[in-house]
């Protein structure tokens, strides 16, 4: 029979998100603490130990056995979590249906199971392809730091710093941590950047069949970073507190009111003359603007994407990269890039220390580069059958 090694979870925990705790002793007074759960996912409770709601929703439920194969769900406000240990509070403990759990004012002896909610379960699926950043740090300390090793000693805070910086750098161009938000464009034509936004990858509008149409950034206009009132000499006018009087952007207003891509049915619409503002017309065509999907600009002043007017009310998909450190759930690395992380941390530490011979630094620089390249090749996920299929698009184009 196979025994788990790196795997934490049994089949029930992974596929159905359930962990059973049988024959648990009774609980009273300060409550009943269940044994520590061993899901890959950390448990989060929406309630604290005083039954006060501290979050929008827990990511788990607890069921208590009431008869043969019959379990009833405990009300969530009696459950709190610390270090993946669920504590069931005794006072006023009831089932979800409102009936009491207590027997003679104590939580009775019995069987429990913890059920992950669907979102937590979904996060858990496929988790094995990742290794947590904390595990990378611990592994690095074990394997690369110590007596008789190249890094004889190193403060943990230094390792944490370099590991997190590596995580950021990897997120930008190596890892497949592209996030995507499904949004619709309001009348203001502005959509704020996602809260963990670092840079966009692609912005598309979605048609009726769910297909993506890439919206391109435009260079024909830009968003000003500052607009202030000027006097007749062109100098800025200040308010009573010596601060420049701000006005709204005329450039943005004009661009948003211009119908540059909605009425045209195709990029080579001959009805537009070469001096038309609607760049992309047949005569005087500017190829980079010759598309009908719409345009956007990056408005750093207001921290948002500004879209062209034809996209109002459209459903869009904003794909972007973050830095992998915004939330704890992001702090994981695909195992295909694990070695590249170790090499990156080692190189960062050795290259920033004094009295490390340059040939050692160079060796690790090379090791890092090789591991990083390897990780990029692996993560680019090129499969011969798939790429052959993509290449077939080429023959179609020639025939056309």
């Amino acid at each position, binding site marked *: 029979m196979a025994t788990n090694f790196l795997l934490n979870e049994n089949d029930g925990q992974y596929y159905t998100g359930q962990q059973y705790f049988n024959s648990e002793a009774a609980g009273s007074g300060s409550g009943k603490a269940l044994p520590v759960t061993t899901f890959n996912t950390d448990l989060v409770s929406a309630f604290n130990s005083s039954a006060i709601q501290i979050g929008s929703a827990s990511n788990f439920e607890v069921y208590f056995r009431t008869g043969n194969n019959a379990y009833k769900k405990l009300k969530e406000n009696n459950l709190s979590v610390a270090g993946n240990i669920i504590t069931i509070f005794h006072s006023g403990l009831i089932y979800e249906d409102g009936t009491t759990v207590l027997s003679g004012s104590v939580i009775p002896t019995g069987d429990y199971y913890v059920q992950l909610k669907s979102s937590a379960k979904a996060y858990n699926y496929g988790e094995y392809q990742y290794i947590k950043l904390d595990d990378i740090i611990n592994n690095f300390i074990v394997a690369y730091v110590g007596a008789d090793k190249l890094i004889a000693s190193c403060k*943990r805070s230094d390792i944490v*710093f370099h590991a997190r910086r590596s995580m950021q750098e990897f997120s930008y161009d190596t890892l497949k941590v592209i996030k995507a938000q499904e949004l619709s464009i309001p009348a203001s034509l502005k959509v704020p950047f996602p809260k963990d936004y670092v840079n966009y990858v692609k912005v598309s509008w979605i048609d009726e069949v769910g297909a993506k149409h890439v919206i391109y950034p435009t260079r024909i206009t830009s968003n000003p970073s500052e607009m202030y009132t000027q006097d007749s000499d062109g100098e800025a006018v200040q308010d009573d507190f010596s601060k420049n009087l701000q006005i709204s952007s005329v450039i943005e207003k004009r661009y948003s009111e211009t119908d540059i891509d909605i009425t045209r049915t195709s990029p080579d619409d001959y009805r537009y003359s070469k001096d038309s503002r609607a760049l992309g017309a047949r005569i005087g065509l500017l190829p980079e603007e010759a598309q009908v999907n719409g345009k956007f600009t990056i408005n750093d002043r207001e921290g948002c994407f500004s879209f062209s007017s034809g996209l109002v009310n459209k459903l869009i998909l904003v794909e972007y990269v973050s830095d992998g450190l915004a939330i704890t759930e992001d702090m994981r690395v695909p195992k295909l890039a694990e070695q590249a992380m170790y090499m990156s941390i080692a190189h960062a530490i050795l290259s920033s220390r004094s009295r490390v011979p340059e040939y050692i630094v160079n060796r690790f620089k090379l090791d890092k580069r090789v591991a990083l390249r390897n990780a990029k090749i692996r993560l680019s996920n090129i499969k011969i059958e798939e790429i052959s299929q993509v290449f077939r698009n080429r023959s179609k184009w020639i025939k056309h």
Partner: protein
Amino acid sequence: MINVDDVYKTVLLILNKEQRGYITPAEFNKIGAQVQNEIFENYFNDINQYLRQPQTDFDYSDRAEYMDEKIAQFKKEGTVSGSSGIFTVPTDLYRLGSVTYTSGSQEVELQKLGRREFYNIINSKLTAPSLSYPVFLQEDNTRDTHTKILVYPTTIASDSIKVQYLRKPGGGTDNVDDPTWAYTVDEDTSGYIFAGTTTGTTVTPSTGAKNFDLHIAEKTEVIKRILLYAGVIVKDPVVLQAMSSELAKDKQLEKS
């Protein structure tokens, strides 16, 4: 543990062999405490030196490991008391090793920082103390003992914190837990008789005998060092010179 009576009798035997002199139990006890502390303090320099030299992994021959074995009897784990991030460590703490706290089923080690480093680290969002990477400062509020640790984040509860440390040799209070050759006086001969496990008013000192709290392998080292001091007491340059040269030879052998 090294039997204090064995050491005292061996020292007397060597000293008296050629009628060189005699050291009293009181003198022996003072020298004993001094020697015990000297040997104990040297462990840390020695282990540091060994760790900087390549060692063999052949059984029983790794010097760093051997030194660690000698220190092992002083290693302890204890709990702290206090709240809001300020905790008092066990009273028998001599040197602090590590501080950990229990988070669920995991033991998380706290990183030791100095004040200046701490102020830098908390200002960087990438390195600021967290429950995954907590830190502590070790600061004293009395002159001679390490009594306080300041833990960050301060939400870590005292009952989850453990300290791993080296206790003081002898176990506790100076002058009481030092190695002691306790005795009673023979009424007929007025000679000193080793008191063994006896305590009380008939015994000098009344707290009774205490063995040397060192690894058994240190017995010869203890005897040689006591003889070195005894050479000073009995004003015998021959003993002094012989023991100095013996100890230097030992040291050279250990470190080569």
